[in-house]
């Protein structure tokens, strides 16, 4: 299996190179034969990568510990499920997995464009194959998942297999962690599709916004997975890492946030290009930046350039990433520069108070935020290079910048849909502004009187009310029009709003999810925590809750041993539940792991950690009271659902209009 996997990887080399060259030449010289040879190479790459991935899976399932990757990420007693997912637990496997997903996207793009965009496809294929070539190169030279565990000094493998593997990192033995990497990777890799189309369109000077329409769904699809991946990562950090939070501005978290920020900006500014033919250069830059940030994010995670709790040891893959990124930046931005005439805008901005300008500020702020995150993440590296000493910037830096930016974006989320295209008149603005503004002020006043004094939280809650009101009003207005003109019932009218214009109303649902997320974020202003050593019978109080340790127990399983406390939780004297926070020690990886218990309500979470066994033999229990965390997860689900609605093809009323199959009409 080792040999089979390696062989498949080595065969990829000529296949991807030949395919890229054939596609490019075929497109350039309009030779149909070469073009289909290129496309077939993409299919063959997919098959080879599938073979390679399957080989690795089989090695895991057969406990073949003579393979270094298997030996380092699995052990005999690991549940089969986790053996499968150990595929992406480490660097070598996850890069192989990345590459496989890339080829999977390639197949999907080939299939969906078999009769469309034929002028662009040769170049799209070439770019996909070049990307695949790069990852294959890295898998072969720097991060080979098929390396034998033991080699002599000449590099000849010695057939030695230890009796058991070193085990999967216990932190990764969690359901959210099983799906988080593939979901996040589907997001990262997915942005290669708009990237490839954008470059192909620039190269061929394709007329119109065809490439944008061709890739809009792909962008949305990738964005959806990226959002889901980030949220699952946050969820995993919250329930598994045991520090009571879900976001720490860790370099790896930032790595996934940056392309999300530019990708979100892109989803908005694409609308402007569709509707008004403006911001073309800007969009090209955003598409390119987003994909390169995805590659950069993988680089940050995989190279260990910025020290992080999650980062891998220093590893040679860094050089390959830097090379690929440099090539990508020079080629893409060079091409945009060369084609600046082709990208010239069809219209200009008319008024500061217009939908267009609100998109402009939305984009500006997203990009500034992305740049601030990038700067903070790379600062240790930059200061080392410039001043010779590493200086890190902590969460205060990131929060200081991104909290106000986030609030401004939240404001725009509610404000922008009230603005008309081109120019908004003051009276119309006042009309649509009155209710949301009044409710916002009312909510702010009530909260202030209820002694909510944290400045940002107060603003955030008030703005959330404002935005939620504007969203509800949009649905109300849309529904009312349908009721009046078509005599539909309310439920039917609302359902038809979605069907008629899924992108617009799905977009509002996404915005509503964002509101819920912000409410959850603001809750963190009121976090409390304390820790105490408790023996059986011992009690501790926090924020109206009392927790009492009933008993302590110890035990073992084939995989780990554990110490566990049985904790009874009461709120204002009434019992709300029994919880069992636990501390484990995994044998194979020789690593402890905390299993937290969470009492979660709409109002707040009570988060229990068995921190350690104390001096007196009791359990040191760390307890956090985190208000409104549930809103984050619910908001995340709403956001993803809204995104799914946006992907639904639009249904038209009356006879279908030919040729309009691509366009979906209005948007938020």
């Amino acid at each position: 299996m080792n040999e089979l996997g390696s062989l498949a990887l080595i065969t990829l080399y000529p296949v991807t190179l030949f395919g890229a060259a054939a596609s490019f030449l075929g497109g350039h010289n309009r030779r149909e034969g070469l073009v289909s040879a290129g496309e077939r190479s993409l299919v063959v790459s997919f098959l080879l990568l599938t073979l390679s991935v399957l080989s690795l899976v089989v090695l895991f399932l057969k406990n073949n510990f003579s393979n270094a990757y298997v030996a380092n990420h699995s052990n005999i007693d690991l549940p089969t499920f986790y053996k499968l997912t150990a595929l992406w637990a480490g660097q070598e496997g996850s890069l192989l997995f990345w590459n496989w997903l890339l080829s999977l996207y390639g197949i999907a793009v080939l299939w969906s464009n078999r009769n469309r965009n034929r002028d662009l496809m040769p170049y799209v294929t070439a770019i996909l194959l070049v990307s695949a070539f790069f990852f294959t190169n890295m898998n072969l030279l720097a991060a080979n998942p098929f390396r034998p565990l033991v080699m002599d000094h000449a590099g000849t493998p010695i057939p030695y297999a230890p009796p058991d593997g070193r085990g999967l990192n216990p932190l990764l033995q969690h359901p959210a962690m099983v799906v988080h990497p593939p979901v996040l990777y589907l997001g990262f890799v997915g942005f290669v599709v708009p990237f490839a189309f954008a470059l192909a369109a620039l190269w061929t000077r394709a007329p119109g916004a065809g490439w944008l329409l061709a890739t809009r769904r792909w962008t949305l699809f990738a964005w959806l997975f990226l959002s889901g991946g980030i949220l699952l990562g946050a969820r995993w950090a919250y329930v598994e890492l045991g520090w009571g939070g879900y976001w720490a501005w860790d370099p790896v978290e930032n790595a996934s946030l940056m392309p999300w920020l530019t990708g979100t900006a892109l989803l908005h500014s694409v609308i402007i290009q569709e509707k008004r033919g403006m911001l073309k250069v800007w969009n090209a830059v955003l598409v390119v930046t987003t994909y390169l940030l995805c590659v950069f994010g993988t680089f940050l995670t995989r190279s260990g350039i910025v020290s992080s709790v999650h980062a891998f040891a220093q590893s040679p893959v860094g050089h390959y990433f830097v090379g690929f990124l440099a090539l990508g930046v020079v080629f893409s931005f060079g091409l945009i520069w060369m084609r600046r005439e082709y990208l010239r805008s069809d219209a200009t901005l008319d008024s500061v108070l217009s939908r267009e300008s609100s998109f402009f500020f939305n984009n500006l702020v997203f990009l500034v935020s992305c740049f601030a995150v990038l700067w903070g993440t790379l600062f240790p590296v930059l200061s080392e290079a410039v001043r010779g000493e590493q200086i890190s910037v902590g969460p205060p830096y990131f929060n200081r910048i991104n909290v106000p930016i986030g609030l401004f974006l939240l404001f725009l989320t509610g404000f922008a849909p009230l603005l008309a295209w081109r120019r908004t008149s003051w009276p119309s603005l006042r009309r649509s502004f009155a209710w949301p503004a009044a409710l916002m002020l009312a909510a702010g006043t009530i909260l202030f009187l209820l002694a909510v004094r944290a400045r940002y939280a107060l603003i955030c809650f008030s703005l959330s009310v404002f935005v939620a009101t504007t969203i509800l009003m949009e649905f109300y207005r849309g529904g009312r029009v349908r009721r009046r003109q078509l005599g539909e019932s309310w439920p039917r009218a609302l359902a038809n709003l979605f069907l008629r214009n899924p992108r617009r109303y799905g977009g509002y649902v996404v915005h509503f999810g964002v509101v819920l997320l912000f409410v959850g974020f603001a809750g963190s202003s009121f976090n409390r925590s304390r820790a105490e050593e408790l023996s059986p019978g011992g009690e501790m109080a926090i924020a109206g809750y009392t927790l009492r340790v009933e008993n302590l127990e110890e035990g073992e399983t084939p995989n780990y041993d554990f110490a566990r406390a049985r904790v009874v939780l009461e709120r204002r004297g009434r019992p709300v539940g029994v919880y069992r926070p636990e501390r484990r020690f995994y044998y194979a990886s020789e690593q402890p792991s905390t299993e937290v218990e969470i009492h979660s309500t709409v109002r707040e979470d009570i988060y229990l950690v068995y921190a350690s066994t104390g001096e007196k033999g009791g359990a040191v229990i760390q307890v956090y009271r985190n208000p409104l965390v549930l809103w984050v997860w619910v908001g995340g689900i709403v956001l993803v659902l809204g995104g799914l609605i946006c992907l639904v093809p639009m249904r038209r009323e009356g006879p279908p209009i030919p040729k309009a199959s691509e366009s979906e009409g209005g948007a938020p």
Partner: protein
Amino acid sequence: MRPMRGRFLIGTGIVLAAVLWLAFTGFDEGKAYYRTVEELREEGEASAGKRLKVGGNVEAGSIVWKEDGLHFRLTQNEASLPVRYLGEAPVPDTFKDGSQAVVEGTVASDGTLEAVKIQAKCASKYEAEYGGESAGAGDSRS
């Protein structure tokens, strides 16, 4: 068209100026200097009061829980640094004898680093233990 462009430039300028101001203030509040245990010993008094991030190995057998916090020593080659952990969060799972740790805090007058944050990773885990040239590249999440 000209006045329009001016207004957009002003708006953009305001946004950028605000962010720059926030960046500078947040930067001062959050910045921490990386030091190794050896560098810290060479610097002596010079590093007092600065917020530091110090990396080293947790000395085996040095971890003690006391009333005033968790005590341990960070070592690097010959140098060694006493650390007292005062942070709120429980120590990470990966923190144990021999693990690589980065602690963040300030040096007190008695030369103890008063840490408010600990990050740790198991350095030994994937090093060449099966005997040979085979060190895997490391652990992680993806």
